[in-house]
């Protein structure tokens, strides 16, 4: 769980990777990697590295069809990050319950 979220956060921490991911989300379909690298002013090698990081985080999937490799976005892992951010919700719920308990006993 921890490793997974750390990977997702690292993947989306980079602005270029966020742009690539965003472009794939907007495309809503599988795009050839050549097409993706054509949109960004980075070497094919650079793009491959970014895509690998995104793939490791589960944010994109890569499939090979014939000679061309295609990638598409998978937004599901972001839900886990969102759940993690809900941590503070639980934290304050717990704290406020504690406060009301404390007041009932001591006031």
């Amino acid at each position, binding site marked *: 769980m*921890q490793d997974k*979220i*750390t990977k997702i*956060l*690292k993947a*989306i*921490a980079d602005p270029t990777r966020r742009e690539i991911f965003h472009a794939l989300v907007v495309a809503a379909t599988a795009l050839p990697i050549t097409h993706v690298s054509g949109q960004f002013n980075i070497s094919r090698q650079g793009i491959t590295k970014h895509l690998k990081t995104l793939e490791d985080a589960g944010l994109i999937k890569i499939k090979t069809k014939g000679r061309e490799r295609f990638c598409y976005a998978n937004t599901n892992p972001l839900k886990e*990050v*969102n759940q*993690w*951010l809900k*941590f*503070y*919700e*639980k*934290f*304050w*719920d*717990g*704290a*406020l*319950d*504690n*406060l*009301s*308990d*404390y*007041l*009932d006993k*001591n*006031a």
Partner: protein
Amino acid sequence: MKDVIRKEHILNHSIDTVWNAITKQEQISNWFIKADFKAEPGYKYTFTAPEEQNCTQIMGEVKKANPYTLIYTWIVAETNIETVVKWELEKTEEGTRLSLEHSGISNYSGENAIKMFNSFNEGWNNCISGLSEYLKQDVHAR
């Protein structure tokens, strides 16, 4: 991403009783977290979670402390990310309405989220489970 957490609680106690519970160092230390705290604007406070739970420190500065509004910044150790916690009390027929607002949560995204996440994993997890253990025991004791 959502940036503000809002909580509301109705407490069957007078507004001054609740105000003391959230502003007095001894009382904060009792129900919430070990506190070096003064409800004075400019005071740099420190909250320290229990050692046996390996919990982390929270630091910040009191921005406002007029009855019945208390505002302080909230920085989890080693993250350098400033968020803001605001407590507001309001008299009601039943007692006191407490409104809590924690804003700036989205500052934790990206690289900062990783740092926050690491410190959270070491400490807060334990804090939360410690709290629920405490509450469980408390319920059984009644």
